[in-house]
């Protein structure tokens, strides 16, 4: 019995040795200062993203008109009444952009969370159990040979265009790229001494995977998650713009741009403003991701991550 309790005791000792919540907060603060010093652009990113998240959270208060209702005020230019003008159906573009931010951000974050969680779990098992690894990685290689948009378009043609189907379609590639990334980390981590030590004291596999290996991949996963968020927001917008994503009656930044497609000459504001929000959001996320990566691995400074 005494032998069996040893891993538990060792873990408890480790937990006791872990920093207190206060020390953890101080360390997080110190890290934030370091991140900002290393890459001051992150401040721009955080400010833009915070503004857009706040705006999205308060969108029911900000939106004043019924943006689904068509009116006779067709294609009015921006004014104090309609900040971003009105579209070809007389709907207020500002209200549609604010309402659209909810769906655009929801899809982006949902794809990111699904891809990171699924990708992490699959990669942990694949990297640890080598017999799974070979088959799974060939499958991942195959999936990643398709451009994201092509696979997503095919899946949406199959499943039909809706918010949930867009999330599913984009999570497929997202998960595959996370699996490839994390698996590489797991392969090198499983040879580390602390994993060997955990195995030696008889810790069960799930404990090694989720408590010893997984936490050590969080840094690179966080950086990659910001990249996934940026590409998912862009991909949803492209799909909805092409008419193969979120249907037109649910406004998203992508399909609002599409509604102004035919009016470049007479009403540029319909497509212009949603695009500004889209670009600003992605820019903010990329700037934050850049700063995180510079902090975690200064050698990679200035590089883009790629799927």
């Amino acid at each position, binding site marked *: 019995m005494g032998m069996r309790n040893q891993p538990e005791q060792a873990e408890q000792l480790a937990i006791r040795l872990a920093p207190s919540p206060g020390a953890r907060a101080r360390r997080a603060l110190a890290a934030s200062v370091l991140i900002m010093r290393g890459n001051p652009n992150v401040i721009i990113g955080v400010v833009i993203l915070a503004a857009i998240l706040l705006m999205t959270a308060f969108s029911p208060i900000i939106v004043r008109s019924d943006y689904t209702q068509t009116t006779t005020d067709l294609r009015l230019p921006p004014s104090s009444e309609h900040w971003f003008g009105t579209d070809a159906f007389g709907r207020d573009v500002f209200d549609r952009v604010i309402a659209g931010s909810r769906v655009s951000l929801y899809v982006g974050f949902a794809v990111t969370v699904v891809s990171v969680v699924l990708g992490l779990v699959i990669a942990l098992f694949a990297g640890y159990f080598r017999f799974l690894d070979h088959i799974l990685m*060939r*499958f991942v*290689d*195959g*999936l990643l*040979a*398709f*451009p*994201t*948009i*092509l*696979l997503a*378009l*095919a*899946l*949406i*043609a*199959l*499943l039909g265009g809706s918010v949930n189907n867009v999330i599913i379609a984009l999570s497929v590639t997202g998960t595959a790229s996370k699996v490839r990334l994390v698996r590489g980390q797991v392969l090198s981590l499983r040879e580390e001494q602390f994993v060997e030590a955990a195995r030696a004291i008889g810790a069960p596999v799930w404990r090694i995977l989720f408590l010893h290996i997984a936490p050590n991949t969080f840094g690179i996963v966080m950086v990659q998650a910001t990249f996934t968020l*940026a590409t998912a927001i*862009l*991909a949803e*917008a*492209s799909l909805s*713009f*092409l*008419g*193969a994503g979120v249907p037109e009656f649910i406004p998203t930044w*992508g399909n609002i*741009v*599409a509604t*102004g*497609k035919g009016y*470049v*000459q007479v009403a*540029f504001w319909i*497509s*212009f403003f949603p*695009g500004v929000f*889209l*670009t600003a959001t*992605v*820019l903010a996320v*990329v*700037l934050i991701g*850049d700063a995180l990566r510079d902090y975690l691995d200064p*050698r*990679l*400074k*200035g*590089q*883009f991550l*790629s*799927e």
Partner: protein
Amino acid sequence: MWRYTLIRIASSIPVILVVGVITFSIIHIAPGDPAAIIGGDEATVEDLERIRQELGTDQPIHIQFIRWVGRLARGDLGTSIFSKQSITTLMAPRLQPTLSLGVQVIVLSTLLGISIGVISAWKAGAPIDRAFMFFAVLGFSAPGFWLAFILIWVFAVNFGWFPALGYRPIGEGILPHLHSMFLPVAVNSILSSAFISRITRSAMLDVLREDYVRTARAKGLRELVVYMRHAFRPASIPVVTVIGASLASLATGFVVTESIFAIPGLGRMLIEAIIRRDFPIIQAMMMVVATGYVLVNLFIDIIYAYLDPRIRY
């Protein structure tokens, strides 16, 4: 060298096989009868029967797969459900616009991206570097369809320099062709060169820290020679990998720009097929694009092994 080439070729075969399995099974993963999904709500019983025969879904699944692979091996990409023509025949006239767009974008974005990256690395930290890198992040963040919209608004509507619509084939003369392709090429080149310039900059900065670069400077070589001969050559290796890998993201750009600028290429053919749920065309596109992607990356890897003798198994 031969060993590496052979192993590398052998390792892409399972990937292409997986690509085939994914492409084949895409119409089988949704619950229900594939014919009913393709036919839509208005399909009659006869329509469904015809689609089933077209797809061969009246056969057991492994027979379907073997037949499908056999047809692909003979270069037969199948038959369109909508127009009932062979897909290779439908694709042939669509090839020229997309290839022309692709070649122009790759050449232009490589030249632009590498020049910007090298200048940024040379002036690292200076205002010009900051400005370039800011635009590189912006170019990465802007969606292609919106950038296309802005360029149309500025250059087609306000200045009237370039047409927003109206593709002109190479047959009508090279200059009218390039003129009609200017805006779509510009959109995609801005997006890709943003990517390439960042990779070039960081690869250059990495190499510039190496000892042999210090030696080259110490023996009194001019900066230009140090940059171009000693630093750029090794730095170009990661850059070329990125250009190979970015071919996949070019596909997104092409689908979007061909649909905006009404270019009758493969990207637009795909969108039309998606709208009509013409699955044989969608599957043919998936197969061609993904196999192409695997082969291009295989080719790049083998070229490397020739250029850099350190790369071996």
